[in-house]
């Protein structure tokens, strides 16, 4: 078996060598992402969108019009050690660009491998704004960052006239911990008061004790903000409303799923951030149609769209750099400005490589979402990561 594998590998390498000498403009993008395990809910749809965009770009001559792309997809099983292993194999295989999972830990671990090899590396939808700085100048985020989402939510809360906020956070992940903390930073800076903080354990789905505490607060908070998502968010909301607490709830992009709208009347009035919302006639809506026509199933999440956007961001960078050489591509990515994608505009120039980009705010009403606004938070308002 082993000798067969080596033979096969040798064959593939010979073929790659042959084909790359025949067509010098082919490049490989390596994807070390979680197609099984706890991150598959985000990485699977991201990959589906990514592949679709690569097919389109290849049909038009490749990245920057001249580099046809081959994908090397490895499943990391949501295991950080396996992600490092996959990243090492991809670096050894000579990939020009690397994509890492939708989470900070494996993305940083994989980035540590690709950084010294000077391979521009992008996380699918990791939202932790410290990812790029934790790795170095070859690491880029792509998705709306936690601090950006929190800023938009805090500005919305202030605009609605909320004075007292209660935040619910979990130290179990950077997302569930830091996003509410960024919110509280901006909310306080803009004149609000954070009246209390609660803590929960992820996956516990029992909020009775926390809810009883909120119920005992006097005065009751004007607004409750959390970055909890499934299964915690629905459980929290049910128990909150069950206890007769009516304060409006603000959430983050983690609750952008059909489960939230399936909660019925208690979900009415929830406002949350998301990467994009398919308003009729928008680019995103057209993409959802196209995706449905191509795969037979409507996208289950906006991650399909954000995955689809990444090759187009790369395309813009390769065009600007004129090559796929590591340092040139890094600089071109870092200087991108106002790249038009499905959900708005993406800018890296002037950021710490976590993009400044449009974020959407939606409200749930009668079992459906409606668009409130789409905006890029002003960089000066966004808290430092």
């Amino acid at each position, binding site marked *: 078996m082993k000798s067969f594998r080596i033979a096969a590998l040798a064959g593939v390498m010979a073929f790659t060598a042959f084909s790359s000498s025949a067509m010098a403009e082919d490049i490989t993008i390596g994807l070390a992402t979680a197609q*099984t*395990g*706890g991150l*598959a*809910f985000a990485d*699977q*749809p991201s990959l589906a969108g990514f592949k679709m965009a690569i097919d389109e770009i290849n049909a038009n001559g490749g990245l920057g019009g001249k580099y046809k792309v081959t994908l090397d997809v490895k499943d990391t099983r949501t295991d950080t050690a396996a992600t490092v292993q996959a990243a090492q194999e991809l670096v050894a295989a000579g990939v020009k660009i690397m994509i890492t999972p939708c989470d900070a830990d494996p993305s940083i671990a994989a980035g540590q491998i690709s950084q010294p090899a000077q391979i521009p590396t992008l996380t699918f939808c990791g939202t932790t704004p410290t990812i790029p700085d934790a790795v170095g100048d070859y690491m880029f985020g792509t998705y709306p960052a936690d601090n950006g989402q929190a800023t938009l939510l805090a500005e919305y809360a202030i605009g609605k006239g909320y004075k007292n906020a209660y935040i619910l956070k979990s*130290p179990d992940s950077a997302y569930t911990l830091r996003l509410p903390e960024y919110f509280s930073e901006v909310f306080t800076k803009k004149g609000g008061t954070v009246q209390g*903080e609660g*803590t929960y*354990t992820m*996956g*516990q*789905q*029992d909020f*009775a*004790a*926390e809810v*009883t*505490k909120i*119920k*005992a607060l006097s005065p009751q908070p004007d607004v409750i903000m959390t970055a909890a998502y*499934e*299964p915690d968010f*629905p*459980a929290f909301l*049910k*128990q909150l*409303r*069950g*206890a*007769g607490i009516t304060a409006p709830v603000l959430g983050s992009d983690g609750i952008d*799923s*059909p*489960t939230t*709208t*399936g*909660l*019925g*009347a*208690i979900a009415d009035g929830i406002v949350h951030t998301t990467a994009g919302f398919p308003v009729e006639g928008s680019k995103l809506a057209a993409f959802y149609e196209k995706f449905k026509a191509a795969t037979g199933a409507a996208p*289950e*999440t906006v991650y399909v769209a954000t995955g689809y956007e990444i090759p187009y961001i790369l395309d813009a960078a390769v065009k600007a750099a004129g090559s796929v050489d590591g340092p040139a591509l890094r600089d071109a990515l870092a200087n991108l400005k106002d790249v038009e994608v499905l959900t708005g505009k993406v800018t890296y120039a002037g950021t710490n490589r976590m993009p400044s980009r449009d974020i959407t705010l939606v409200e749930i009403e009668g079992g459906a979402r409606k668009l409130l606004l789409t905006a890029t938070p002003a960089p000066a308002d966004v808290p430092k990561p």
Partner: protein
Amino acid sequence: MDIFLQQIINAISLGGIYALLALGLAVVFSIVSLINFAHGELMTVAGYGMFFAIAVSLPFPFALAAAVIFACAAALLTERFAFRPMRKADMTGLLLTSFAVSAILRVLFQNGISARSKAVPLPAELSGAIDLGFFHIGIVPLLSIVTTALSLWALTLFLRRTTLGKAMRAAAEDFQVLRLMGIKANRVIAVAFAVSGVLAGVAAVLWIAQRGSVDPLMGFVPVLKAFVAAVIGGLGSLSGAVAGGFALGILEVLFQAFLPEAALPFRDAFVLGFVILILIWRPDGLIPAPVSRRS
């Protein structure tokens, strides 16, 4: 005082779900010495049963029935195709088999159904609360308490009054002697799995009533809690499993409610620390099995 009462109700409701889960583990363990870590996946199967029933617009009671039937069927199928061939294996072999079953099922859900969670919308009446003046009780916690009590009562009747139930109790005490009496081993074991499947299905309904969705990895947390509860109670002891479930639920809620804010992130450490104290005090669990077996 009213806050304390409120928290006690919360604790009983959570403890009841843990008790049902731990009971499911204990029923199987008492007979075949298997800690079935695929028990959580039985809950996931039950959840998908509900999801599909609602997706084809069956009325809600049918969705509940689907949950229990799916979980029961899944329990019997795993028994027939995974655990029966491994019957002669030792405890470690059985344990690893259950891990394998669990992993295989999870990947099947992820790649066969969806890696994303599926919404299981419940009737709106279920998310309300009853206001008794001095405190609120949510419908779901109330149903949890009632369902747990009914399930425990039904299981007790089954074990005490029916021939199969008596055979199961006998099997837990001495399986070889039971076989010498002419009772078919396969049948008793299959019934034990079926009972654990039904318990998983009922627990899954209560669990999903809180979260409103089913996802491929949903079973992981509950099975861990069930395992801890079964160990506190005394592995293989049915009344111990119930006591352990309630003990764990009460510990969790009380620590969450009354620990100082700064210590809250370490709540689970406090809970498990307390569990260790219980086990030092009673190494075989709160109510040890007649034939005590430690894993």
